[in-house]
């Protein structure tokens, strides 16, 4: 029984959610990893160092650049006969590609698993994490996306897998990459950050999100937001933490001016330590917070920034 994990990477190496997907796959048996795109030498070398990976497949083809779903699914379909399980992280890339592969294999995908019970049985959240369903698949092959926050990622170094270039057949030409507009930030990615500080509707406008910056800088934290803040247009959607945004589980999550709607809690309640700052002491966020501070955020945030600077 061998699993294949589709990896995402950037110049810094294999992305953390993908390393969590490798961790989930190691619970199932031997693990092979796939890197696809162009100029893959660095990514292949980084993948080969992941502990637990036995072999790295390298699919170098211009059609696979940017991992568009149509060609990437065609590639995975071609590789599928050798594998019992195909996995990827529950990211925009994983969610886009894996269900497409599953349909082509006549398999019902198992989305966003939070635990592996056995080779056929997995635990996954439903209803925004208000229920944890244990599901058993009757399909011959399993197509799985992995909730990164639920699996400690494998280390970036320590392994020594073999690297094998694979032939890529004809790719469907249904889609074409035009451009990417990625937020430039010196801060860590939301899903990989050790500390996250998020603002909600209480921030009142987009400008006020700047109040979070000195604190995020002092702590090396990523900045997030509730859906309410995104809906109100304060910040772009990629900041969104919650059922319909990103799922995070940092060591410290600081919720500022966030009431704590179910949809938001679904995205952060597995954080190790939760801090809530809200002027409404009845806000539901306090029911999940380890430390609650009832205060006006416009007073508390500058104080917090100053306090952190002092120490």
């Amino acid at each position: 029984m061998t699993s294949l994990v589709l990896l995402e990477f950037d110049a810094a190496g294999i992305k953390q959610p993908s390393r969590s997907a490798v961790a989930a796959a190691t619970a199932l048996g031997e693990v092979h990893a796939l890197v696809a795109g162009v100029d893959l030498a660095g990514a292949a070398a980084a993948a080969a160092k992941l502990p637990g990976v036995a072999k790295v497949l390298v699919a170098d083809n211009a059609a696979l650049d940017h991992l568009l779903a149509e060609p990437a699914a065609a590639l995975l379909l071609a590789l599928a006969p050798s594998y019992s399980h195909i996995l990827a992280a529950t990211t925009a890339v994983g969610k886009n590609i894996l269900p497409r592969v599953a349909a082509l294999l006549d398999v019902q995908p198992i989305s966003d698993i939070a635990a592996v019970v056995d080779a056929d049985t997995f635990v996954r959240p439903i209803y925004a994490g208000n229920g944890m369903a244990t599901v058993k698949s009757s399909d011959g092959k399993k197509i799985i996306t992995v909730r990164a926050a639920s699996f400690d990622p494998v280390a970036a170094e320590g392994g020594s897998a073999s690297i094998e270039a694979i032939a890529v057949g004809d790719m469907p030409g249904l889609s074409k990459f035009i451009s990417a507009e990625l937020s430039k930030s010196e801060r860590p990615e939301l899903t990989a950050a050790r500390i996250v500080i998020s603002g909600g509707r209480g921030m009142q406008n987009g400008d006020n999100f700047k109040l979070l910056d000195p604190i995020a800088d002092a702590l090396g934290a990523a900045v997030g937001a509730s859906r309410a803040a995104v809906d109100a247009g304060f910040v772009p959607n990629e900041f969104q933490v919650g059922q319909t945004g990103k799922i995070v589980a940092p060591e410290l999550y600081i919720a500022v001016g966030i009431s704590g709607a179910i949809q938001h809690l679904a995205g952060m309640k597995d954080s190790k330590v939760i801090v809530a700052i809200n002027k409404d002491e009845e806000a539901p966020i306090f029911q999940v917070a380890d430390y609650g501070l009832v205060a006006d955020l416009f007073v508390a945030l500058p104080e917090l920034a100053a306090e952190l600077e002092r120490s």
Partner: protein
Amino acid sequence: MKILVPVKRVVDYNVKVRVKTDGSGIETAGVKMSMNPFDEIAVEEAVRLKEKGVATEIVAISLGVAQCAETIRTALAMGADRGILVETDADLQPLAVAKMLKAIADTEQPGMIILGKQAIDDDMSATGQMLAALLGWSQGTFASKLEVDGGTMTVTREVDGGLETVALTLPSVVTTDLRLNEPRYASLPNIMKARKKPIANMKPADLGVDPAPRLVTIKVDEPAKRQAGKKVGSVAELVSKLKTEAKVI
């Protein structure tokens, strides 16, 4: 161009759902049901494309129990032209839904299918991608903007680090993200008009699809509960606790 819009009947997003005490699933008896919010965005987008003259007809489709007809009526009141109900009591999963939608698309020959990026009940986020695969079409998932130009469509997608823009050959399947649009409320006259719009009724067998689930739910547990912690009196106390007690900064 004809547009199909699949709409799912789900527990209303404002309902605080509870796990059944026997662990067999989520309590849905007597709970308010509504159209999946992302599917509302899909209906709205289709209606806007019709208003722009891109779409000529909008067909709303729902699969599931008889009451899914109400969800179709909601779409008709928003501006869809007719409905198709595939009635079944089976526990439908995305693979079976995608197969049935494919069978309908084979007959209806739409130029585009727009649906929500995920349903807020099973949170699978799979049906649109699977439907595109079965049809052999392109897919524009998590769309926050789309523009149709002849035989191609430009879709801006919400991805992890920001936005990605792709050009897709039509026909195509689009799944909607939050910022694509803000769905309208149906006006009373339109709700009245929707009552007269036709809804065709069929069964999974009419589409040649076995709706049996491939995933069996063994049990549903309550998520681990967090205990409410303590209130701190000041920012200084908070920082001190985070340092000495929680040891996270």
